[in-house]
């Protein structure tokens, strides 16, 4: 702790502190970046900086898109840096926005932040409708574009990918347990969530209690993803406490945990990663991007041991997806917008998916890739499965505090699974936490 012996010095330094406080408060957002954006000069050398997360740009690089763009545009140099965790990325990004400086020319935004971005950062990001690439937005779904549309109708980013949901499963483990391992036969047994759980009970019985699902949180995620609303209604009002999605899904997921169908793992924990390799769980709710994650964690030795099953009843849901946004203050705005448009174009996104990377958000790209199959997943027709799921996915309204609400409910589910707390009590706990943090 800091101790002072001189009152005068304290006053002087305090005055200094208050002065700089005033200066800091003045450094707000500038409005001069709000106008329309022109085209970039193709002869002027430009370095486009990118600050990214979660492998978005690593995927572009792997797919050869960055090299391709720099070859076609010799004046452009792309420099990107990337962190893995979106939460770390977001904290750093939000701090930069608060301080008013330090943003790169392109910054991806995750869909769970979209509501906050659209409601409170309209002065930070370029309106893509005011750029020469606005037409490209017509190929995107209403759900994706709507997520980053402000009240005034500005669209603050270009959608990069989507996360239509399916169920990935260990066909080898199912076979060992005497269950059908072929997706068509399995689909005949799993016709709704109830039968999904009862097949899980058969699996548990045949394997001496091995876990059917990876995590209670993952199950809750897929259950809520197929419903028309989640935490908020269309007017942006929080309805999680009383609507037909959250509580029923919570009860179902908690029930599965109580039946011992879940593996007691937290998603993205090291133990969860390992379990993908060892087969400590048999099924996992998997958005399109999870396939790449599974390949990476389960390793080559498990090639062919995994398969993909569409959700029962032709249900569709979405989990995740990102947007490329360009700050209004970026000195290379024109060039950055053009690069972002190239990376999110139908051809580029289709290219990426064919190489086993992210699934396209662009509907034209989805149509181009209907024939894609995945050898690692037993040749599953993932192009068709995910396209069907994407079309069936509801256009769920998002809310500013989705993250905090999901976190509290996830914690409550863990409490049921790991601490043996009764579902009712855990729900009350979540209600209290959410009202406390969000209210």
């Amino acid at each position, binding site marked *: 702790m800091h101790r002072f012996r001189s009152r005068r*010095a304290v006053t002087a330094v305090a005055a200094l502190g208050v002065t700089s406080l005033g200066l800091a408060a003045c450094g707000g957002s500038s409005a001069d970046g709000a106008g329309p954006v022109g085209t970039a000069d193709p002869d002027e050398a430009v370095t486009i900086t990118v600050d990214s997360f979660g492998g978005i740009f690593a995927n572009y690089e792997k797919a050869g898109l960055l090299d391709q763009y720099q070859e076609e545009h010799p004046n452009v140099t792309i420099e990107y840096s990337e962190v893995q965790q979106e939460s770390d990325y977001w904290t750093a990004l939000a*701090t930069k926005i608060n301080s008013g400086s330090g943003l790169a020319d392109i910054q991806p935004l995750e869909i769970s932040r979209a509501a906050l971005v659209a409601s409170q950062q309209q002065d930070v990001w370029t309106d893509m409708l005011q750029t020469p690439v606005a037409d490209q937005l017509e190929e995107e779904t209403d759900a994706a574009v709507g997520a980053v549309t402000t009240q005034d109708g500005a669209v603050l980013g270009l959608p990069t990918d989507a996360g239509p949901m399916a169920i990935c499963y260990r066909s080898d483990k199912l076979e060992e347990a005497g269950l059908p391992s072929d997706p068509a036969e399995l689909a005949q047994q799993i016709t709704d969530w109830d039968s999904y759980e009862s097949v899980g009970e058969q699996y548990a019985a045949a394997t001496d209690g091995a876990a059917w699902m990876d995590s209670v949180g993952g199950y809750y995620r897929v259950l809520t993803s197929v419903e028309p609303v989640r935490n908020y209604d269309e007017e942006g009002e929080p309805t999680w406490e009383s609507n037909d999605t959250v509580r029923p899904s919570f009860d179902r997921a908690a029930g599965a945990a109580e039946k011992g169908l879940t593996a007691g793992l937290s998603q993205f924990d090291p133990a969860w990663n390992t379990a993908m390799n060892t087969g400590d769980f048999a099924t996992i709710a998997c958005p399109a991007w999870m396939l790449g994650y599974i390949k990476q964690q389960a390793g080559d030795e498990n090639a062919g041991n995994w398969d993909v099953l569409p959700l029962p009843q032709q249900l569709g849901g979405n989990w995740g997806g990102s947007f490329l946004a360009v700050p209004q203050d970026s000195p290379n705005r024109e060039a950055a917008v053009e690069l972002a448009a190239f990376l999110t174009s139908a051809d580029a996104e289709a290219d990426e998916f064919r190489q086993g990377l992210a699934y396209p958000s662009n509907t034209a790209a989805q149509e181009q890739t209907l024939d894609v199959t995945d050898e690692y997943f037993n040749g599953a027709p993932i192009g068709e499965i995910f396209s069907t799921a994407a079309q069936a996915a509801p256009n769920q309204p998002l809310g500013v505090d989705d993250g905090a609400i999901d976190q509290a409910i996830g914690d409550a589910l863990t409490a049921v699974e790991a601490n043996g707390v009764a579902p009712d009590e855990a729900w009350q706990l979540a209600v209290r936490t959410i009202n406390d943090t969000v209210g």
Partner: protein
Amino acid sequence: MAAHAPTTTPAEPAGAGHPPTRTPPDEVARRSRREGRAYRRAPYVYIAPFFLLFGAFGLFPLVYTVWISFQEYRLGGGDPEFVGWDNYVWLFGSPSFYNSLWKTLTIGLISTVPQLLMALGLAHLLNMNMRVRAFFRVSMIVPYATSLVAATLVFASIFANTPGGLMNVVLGMVGIDPINWTNGNWTAQIAIATIVTWHWTGYNALIYLAGMQSIPKDLYEAASIDGAGRFRQFLHVTVPGLRPTILFTIVLSTIGATQLFTEPFLFGNGAEGGALGQYQVLTLYMYNIGFEIGRLGRAAAIACVTLIIVIALVLLNTGLAFLRTRDKSQPLLRRRRGASSKKVSR
């Protein structure tokens, strides 16, 4: 630095006592006054860089935090908006706040108390005549020099929930069922306290060792002539002699316990501190509200309250230790002073 210097009237100018020379007396007086002023100003100039840096990186954030705590201010959105005491009202009505206060206290107690006791014992052993003493002393500091992040990750795998976790294997050998370390209330706290204890025990032991070496040897000689064994010497000579050092380590540990962050943060892979907040200490709660939920105003209010709690705890600890010192060790201190002055006179 002398705080009152500029406020008092200037003392006798440095050259005033000299007999007048050929230069006119008022000129001499003026020059010496000037020199006197420069002489008096010098310390302030020397110390200015510290205060400028402290102002920019210490005081400004402090003042700014207090200011933010009266605003509604979201991470990544909008300008701050004055809301008066709202954030504090919210904080004192929040059950999670009281939970985090309680967890800070319990983890602080179960990490600090064994830590300081063990450090005391280790220092006593290190103070004895033994072979390769330097080796043992240096190895004491190794945990402290180890990266806390690396250590926490290692401990997280030691306290893994699975039956294959090292601690569960060890417990299995004595017939105890595997423990769900991270999800249990006390087990998670014990695991975190273990990391803290491991990290700081050696450091405190070395501080105690330094303190012990300043205790005059003749006190021990006198005690052994009186027939006191090793343990009685430890109890009646070492511990009372170490009182100021113990006080220092208690103050440091109190501050450290209140600001505990890295260990629980990495142990739980986030700032929620477990599904039921089993180990959500104050700083974790602050991080959770500020950077995960994104309410900077509320987080600032937590920071301000934490600061007040730290100050109160330190004052309380100091006061308690001071009272104990005055009650019990007065005669001994006098005796010790007598002993050392005798030593000087010899």
